[in-house]
């Protein structure tokens, strides 16, 4: 009997040891992890029940367990210093052309005709003649249903109020490209907040006085207070680095944006609007409601920024507004990063913990209103977390998010998203419209409860938490807990992703001339062969990674060659025409050079060689290695 008890005792301790060994051998499997605790409890219980225990042994085991949890508590909640934010700028950084970003390339046709015509492949003839036909256009993935049209329309309607020419006392009339600032009659006469110069009461309390003195610190507190009052989740303030300004504009298809014209714009105010937890949680990219989330947050943030800017202009300052989808003057994510509100995450966008991680859309006001910017060095441990968490990369239906380590592009060392693949899926998703898989699965995407804030604190401070929650080199609790399951909407299934492909063998012909812009060989998409079906598996079908298996495409959706047909799955009425028109045209190299030399057309992307950038780059800001702080300082001194 006694022998059996001892034997079982040995088995239980061995089980615990085996769990420990398995835990390490399986690279921190969550079940091996849990098994350590269960087997330890069983072994301790068996020991206590069957063998003599002395008072000293009881005390020591108590203290052992207490000591263990005190250590863990200290490691998880101790005020360890937040890891330093990486120095992202490691090389020469060029301004980004708005024609170069995914949407610019897709809409302009630089990625190929099939995807540029995504609207046509997206619907059936009845719809083409219906909702979109009324406006003479095929409904696109954005405008394909009334709510999305209403929301994106709400943003577009505000374009005239971004800060352009005055019109009846209001900056209302958009010029060809509004790269000029609104000059009011009262320019030079600075007005105060109100007749009594009274501060918002909470700002007054914080500062210890009630009447405004218009110091940068006070101005910042007021702008933050007003921004949040308007509905922003948080308000970021940064000193402008001129490399954030796009070099060429998208709406007017390539108009250059000279830095000389915006020298007054020294500060960026960024407003964040939530895409809403419930909608993001319940509507993945295949819900057919998906794109409306962007429209909601774009139009709401636009409206907030337009009103904030109108107030600043009335006070006598310059204020320009940038908002989405495509009405920005500058790249948004560096504002979030260098205002001290976030860090670049694996998705390559800014993760902002106070705005649901990636769940926001932002709008910005660029101004000369004197402000005190946030601390650009303020970190949140996001880079460390992302290094241990690849949930977004695993979730991405087209593998456009990098696994592994950050890399350098355009002089910036960060994770780089394959924007062409992402945009091709978002515009050409045949099983839904748009996508939000990456931001949906991000651990930072939770409602802003005290519990979630505690989690964010741990991730920022604790050297252990990223390994506990992340799965790259850790336990992967975030995976195991499974926040993806919504009790309101059920489980979001991994799905066979299908998207609009180019015809087999497709190769874009450059130079490609569209609007005022010429795309050259340097703009060729690295995902071009993939876009034409080479090696493309229509998503991750058949792949398994960390327990996630990607399903098969139903046979009825495949053509005779086993490839997914380039049609919406409701479209059963026949094939598309083999050739679809491009919005621009291919021209000869000589023609292109003549147009560029004569200033009739423009070109350039951040990856272009200097000789292929028209107009030329700024020697002051786009030569050599200039950190953010150096560039912002120079810009501030610029008269």
């Amino acid at each position: 009997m006694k022998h059996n008890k001892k034997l079982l005792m040995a088995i239980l301790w061995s089980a615990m040891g085996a769990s420990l060994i398995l835990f390490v051998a399986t690279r921190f499997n969550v079940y091996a992890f849990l098994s350590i605790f269960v087997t330890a409890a069983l072994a301790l219980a068996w020991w206590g029940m069957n063998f003599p225990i002395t008072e000293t042994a009881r005390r020591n085991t108590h203290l052992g367990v207490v000591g263990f949890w005190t250590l863990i508590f200290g490691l998880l909640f101790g005020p360890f210093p937040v890891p330093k934010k990486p120095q992202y700028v490691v090389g020469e950084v060029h301004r980004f052309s708005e024609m170069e970003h995914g949407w610019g390339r897709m809409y302009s046709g630089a990625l190929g005709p099939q995807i540029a015509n995504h609207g046509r492949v997206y619907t059936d003839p009845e719809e083409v003649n219906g909702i979109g036909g009324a406006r003479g256009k095929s409904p696109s993935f954005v405008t394909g249903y009334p709510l999305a049209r209403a929301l994106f329309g709400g943003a577009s309607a505000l374009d005239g109020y971004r800060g352009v020419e005055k019109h009846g006392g209001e900056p209302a009339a958009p010029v060809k490209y509004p790269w000029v600032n609104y000059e009011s009659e009262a320019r030079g006469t600075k007005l105060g907040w109100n007749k009594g110069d009274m501060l918002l009461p909470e700002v007054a309390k914080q500062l210890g006085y009630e009447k405004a003195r218009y110091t940068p610190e006070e101005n910042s507190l007021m702008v933050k207070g007003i921004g949040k009052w308007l509905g922003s989740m948080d308000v970021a303030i940064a000193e402008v680095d001129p490399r954030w300004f796009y070099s060429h504009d998208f709406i007017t298809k390539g108009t250059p944006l000279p830095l000389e014209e915006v020298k007054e714009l020294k500060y960026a105010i960024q407003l964040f609007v939530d895409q809403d937890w419930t909608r993001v949680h319940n509507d993945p990219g295949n819900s057919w409601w998906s794109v409306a989330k962007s429209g909601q947050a774009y139009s709401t943030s636009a409206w907030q920024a337009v009103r904030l800017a109108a107030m600043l202009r009335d006070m006598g300052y310059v204020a320009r507004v940038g908002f989405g989808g495509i009405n920005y003057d500058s790249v948004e994510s560096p504002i979030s990063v260098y205002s001290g509100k976030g860090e670049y995450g694996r998705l390559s966008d800014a993760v902002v913990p106070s705005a649901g991680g990636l769940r926001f859309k932002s709008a910005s006001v660029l101004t000369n209103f004197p402000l005190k910017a946030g601390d650009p060095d303020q970190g949140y441990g996001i880079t460390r977390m992302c290094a241990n968490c690849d949930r977004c990369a695993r979730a991405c239906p087209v593998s456009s998010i990098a696994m592994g380590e950050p890399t350098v592009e355009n002089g910036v060392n960060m994770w780089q998203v394959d924007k062409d693949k992402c945009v091709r899926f978002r515009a050409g998703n045949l099983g839904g419209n748009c996508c939000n898989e990456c931001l949906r699965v991000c651990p930072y995407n939770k409602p802003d409860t005290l519990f979630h804030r505690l989690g964010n604190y741990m991730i920022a401070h604790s050297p252990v938490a990223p390994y506990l929650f992340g799965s790259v080199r850790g336990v992967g609790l975030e995976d195991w807990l499974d926040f993806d399951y919504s009790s309101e909407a059920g489980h979001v299934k991994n799905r066979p992703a299908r998207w609009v492909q180019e015809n087999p063998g497709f190769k874009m012909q450059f130079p490609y001339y569209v609007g005022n812009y010429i795309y050259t060989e340097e703009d060729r998409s690295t995902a071009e062969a993939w876009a034409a079906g080479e090696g493309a598996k229509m998503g991750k079908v058949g792949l398994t990674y960390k327990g996630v298996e990607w399903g098969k495409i139903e046979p009825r959706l495949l053509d005779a060659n086993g490839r997914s047909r380039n049609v919406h799955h409701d479209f059963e009425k026949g094939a598309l025409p083999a050739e679809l028109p491009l919005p621009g045209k291919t021209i000869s190299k000589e023609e292109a050079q003549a147009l560029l030399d004569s200033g009739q057309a423009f070109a350039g992307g951040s990856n272009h060689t200097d000789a292929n950038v028209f107009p030329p780059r700024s020697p002051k800001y786009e030569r050599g290695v200039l950190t953010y702080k150096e560039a912002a300082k120079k810009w501030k001194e610029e008269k």
Partner: protein
Amino acid sequence: MLNLKVNFQMKWYEGLLWAVEIGLVAFGLWALVDTLMISCSKAAWRFLLLFLIWALPGAAVLVFFRPGRNAQDNA
């Protein structure tokens, strides 16, 4: 009249372990409620389970690891 007399004795180290155990369960309950409130029922119950599993070794020590209870068996 009912005369209830409760005799409760605890060593200082037992008090510490009780505090740890109560803390773990309380944390689990907080996680459960917070996560149910955001409609993640699966994560909510798993969160609670996680904390209960973490609390198991301490509970085993509190309940079973006592002098005297097995003396006659094992003497």
